[in-house]
């Protein structure tokens, strides 16, 4: 296979000369118990072809029936994206032959989507807000999954044979299509990424999908075109398919900007085509050109009656929508009183939920932030893990902070307690007890240690008695060392001064 890789224009140069316009189609698999059109269960990781019915296998005679929960989820998504909800809409057949599509047509929606004309404000890492207009959100069914055996890297070319798993066939999907996203300029890759990330967060909050990118619950197709100026008509676009991580979305946009700029610079025209994204190097390459690809012969699905959600139902769903991520961030920002930059860092570190839960467990927002963004962030970085993946819960951090507040341990000891919790030794209280870390508050053993220290450093005692309190720290340090840090330094100081004055 020979592909001529065009020279790439450096990204910065490309966006100085051209205005990028993006368009994103996001597919989300709904987490309903059963499939879109039949009672087959759907769950991740089941044995191949065990989650099927005559309907999802496309057997002769089988008929679809719409999953009401999937419709409800689609409406939830539509409302969260500020869309209109259709009073009546139909399914349509999208006809094309492919072995992973059991009926050789996909039941989808064509000119009558369930939700349309919405928008979503997405926030970039520096707090800039960009409004993305939503053209439509429609319901459809997923295809099965092909596995190509033999040949190289699981590709169809050179494969000896292919296996099809129909467990995924018929899983409910909602496809969300944006209008052309303009005005992002050089920040187009960031906007694309932030948009997909914002959708993922919304899906989770709405509880319509697990929205796990690595499982393909959320998949994005990224359209990109360039034009000379923001006033010029839209240029020819490419559609990069199946870009399945946030980072990849960003990279795919950057790559296409650089690639298309090179083509335009050379006075050539961008070919309208679908492209594949390559995770290894962040590049894209042309997809297979299908002879009949552009004519899906859509027509209204005659096996299904129109879906007509009553206005009362739609309002009921609207009334029970949970607080959406952006509104929640604003509320927590106010409640916690963090500085803008602090809040952004918290969000970007994925610590929002953790801090909220820690506050719920009794800690102050400042203390919660201090732990998660400080010591724990450091440890997560060391282990190359996400904060949420650390073996410690917000409740445990809450408990830890309570121990500090009660004066039973100090900050330094608290770090040792963290070690114990992370090592699986139990809750902070248990670790304190089992490791014997509680601050020594009984003056008895403390006085013994102080007397020993005073006896060991008579010169210091002399100086202090002479009115110079400076060197007293040496005594305190020795006492702290002797008590392995478990003494309350303030109390030690008091006692030392009493003793010397004594």
């Amino acid at each position, binding site marked *: 296979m020979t592909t001529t890789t065009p020279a790439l224009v450096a990204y910065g140069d490309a966006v100085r000369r051209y205005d990028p316009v993006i368009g994103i189609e996001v597919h989300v698999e709904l987490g309903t118990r059963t499939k879109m059109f039949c009672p087959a269960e759907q769950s991740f990781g089941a044995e191949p072809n065990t989650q099927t019915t*005559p309907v999802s296998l496309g*057997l*002769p*005679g*089988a*008929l679809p029936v719409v999953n009401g929960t999937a419709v409800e989820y689609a409406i939830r998504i539509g409302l969260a994206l500020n869309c209109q909800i259709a009073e009546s809409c139909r399914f349509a057949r999208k006809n094309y032959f492919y*072995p992973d599509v059991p009926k*050789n047509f996909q039941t989808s929606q064509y000119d009558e989507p369930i939700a349309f004309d919405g928008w979503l404000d997405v926030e970039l890492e520096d707090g800039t807000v960009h409004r993305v207009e939503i053209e439509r959100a429609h319901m459809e069914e997923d295809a099965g999954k092909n596995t190509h055996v033999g040949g190289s890297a699981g590709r169809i070319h050179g494969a000896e044979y292919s296996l099809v798993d129909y467990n995924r066939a018929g899983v409910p999907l909602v496809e969300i299509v944006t209008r052309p996203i303009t005005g992002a300029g050089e920040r187009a890759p960031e906007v694309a990424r932030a948009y997909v990330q914002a959708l993922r967060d919304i899906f989770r909050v709405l509880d319509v999908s697990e929205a796990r990118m690595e499982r393909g619950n959320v998949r994005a197709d990224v359209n990109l075109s360039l034009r000379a100026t923001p006033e010029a008509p839209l240029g020819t676009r490419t559609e990069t398919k199946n870009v399945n991580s946030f980072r990849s979305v960003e990279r795919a946009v950057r790559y296409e900007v650089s690639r298309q700029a090179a083509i335009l610079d050379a006075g050539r025209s961008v070919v309208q085509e679908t492209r594949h994204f390559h995770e290894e190097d962040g590049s894209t390459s042309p997809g297979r050109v299908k002879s009949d690809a552009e004519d899906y012969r859509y027509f209204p699905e005659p096996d299904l009656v129109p879906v007509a959600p009553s206005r009362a139902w739609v309002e009921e769903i609207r009334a029970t929508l949970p607080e959406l991520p952006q509104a929640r961030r604003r509320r927590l920002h106010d409640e916690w009183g963090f500085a803008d930059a602090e809040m952004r860092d918290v969000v970007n570190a994925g610590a929002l939920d953790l801090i909220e839960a820690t506050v719920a467990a009794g800690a102050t927002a400042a203390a919660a932030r201090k732990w998660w963004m400080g010591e724990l962030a450091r440890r997560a970085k060391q282990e190359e893990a996400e904060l949420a993946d650390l073996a410690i819960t917000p409740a445990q951090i809450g408990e830890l902070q309570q121990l500090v507040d009660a004066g039973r341990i100090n900050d330094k000891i608290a770090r040792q307690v963290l070690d114990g919790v992370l090592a699986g030794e139990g809750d902070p209280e248990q670790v304190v007890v089992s490791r014997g870390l509680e601050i020594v508050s009984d003056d008895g053993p403390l006085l013994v240690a102080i007397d020993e220290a005073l006896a060991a450093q008579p010169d210091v005692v002399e100086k202090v008695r002479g009115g110079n309190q400076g060197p007293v720290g040496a005594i305190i340090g020795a006492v702290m060392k002797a008590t392995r840090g478990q003494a309350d330094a303030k109390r030690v100081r008091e006692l030392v001064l009493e003793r010397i004055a004594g």
Partner: protein
Amino acid sequence: MTDLTRLSACQLSETLASGEASSVEATRAHLDRIAAVDGDVHAFLHVSADDALATAADVDARRANGEVLHPLAGVPIAVKDVVVTKGMPSTAGSKILEGWIPPYDATLVERLRAAGLPILGKTNMDEFAMGSSTEHSAYGNSHNPWDLERIPGGSGGGSAAAVAAFEAPLAIGTDTGGSIRQPGAVTGTVGVKPTYGGVSRYGLIALASSLDQAGPVTRTVLDSALLHELIGGHDPRDSTSIPEPLPPLVEAARQGALGDLSGLRVGVVTQLQGEGYQPGVLARFHESLELLTKAGAEVVEVSCPHFEYALAAYYLILPAEASSNLAKFDGMRFGLRVEPEDGPVTAERVMAATRGAGFGDEVKRRIILGTYALSAGYYDAYYGSAQKVRTLIQRDFADAFAQADVLVSPTAPTTAFKLGEKLDDPLAMYLNDVATIPANLAGVPGISVPSGLSDDGLPAGFQILAPAKADDRLYRVGAALEAALESTWGGPLLDRAPTLG
């Protein structure tokens, strides 16, 4: 002892209930009859003797135990091969489904089994129900029991021929443009296309989803009512199934048989008579009308101006839907699989080779027509226009039913034509359905009742159409007409058919 195969389903039901005969005896009698005559008639593609006898034995045992059974329990039935039957071949008359054994039952088959009707086997049909003669079956045509040289109608010619030849008292048909009613007309049997949504389509191998409807094929109007009540009613697995209960059909048939149609307005559709209709067929039609008048009905003439375009619209909508419905037959998951003779064995090439080898010419013709009609740039002109015509036809029906309680016409313009006569002329074949198609486009119910023998000595049919969900009117009027005609004939029309075997 009476010949159990000559009884109507209702009579057989009474015979079984009284203990005069067992279901095993009745089933065996029909299997014997099939063995004796089906070599000539070829109504069956598959005979399921063991399965039928096992069901019969089970019903007999339950009856002996004093269980309350469905009135049709133990009465054998034949099922059109387009209906999916668990563990029994279901080919829809196509090579592409040869050897496929479905893992599930159609809803209507579930209901037959639950009521204890022994299933004798699967009946022949035009491939995927595309045709009016069974000549498009991949397994050879069926023959008309009245004249073995003639077609038994289609697509459900097998079911009609089986019932006309006394191989089964009951059969299931499907009607997309007349496939129950036209075979009924040309074989002297009764066939009913229920209101669209009246009988579940779950498990019917789809031809055109918005037109297909399963229904009874029987020798009497009352038998159809009994069977219709059994298989009809809401099914949550078919979204287009009507949620409301069926109107009382058996009661309507029994009441109609009393012969009083006072107050009934019968609308004669101007556009469904005259040119193209065989004189003998029209003569029997008018005699039947006379009998309805005598029974107290008032006959009015109604005009349905858009029926003229029904055939054209039908032959766009049907192929369009069929082209999509038949896409699943690709050799990937079930049925025939053909690998290309040379070159690489890719999925696309296996699909092409399988479809090339598995589909007959008429099926390919309609798939090509339908694919074209749905193509980008042609959709509005073809499929879109056809849907508009469909709306106009529905309005014609609405206007006509404002003037009449039922509409009537000859079921088919001619009696059974000779085998091979129209095989090379698809348009002539299509024209045979001109009177039955409007009902499918509008979703309204229709029945064909034998109206007598035409000048050529072959049966003709009288079609009655009613508004959607008013299927009971078909039975009331049909039973009244049947009673009046049989009293003029001195018995059922089929008594005059040749005795085969």
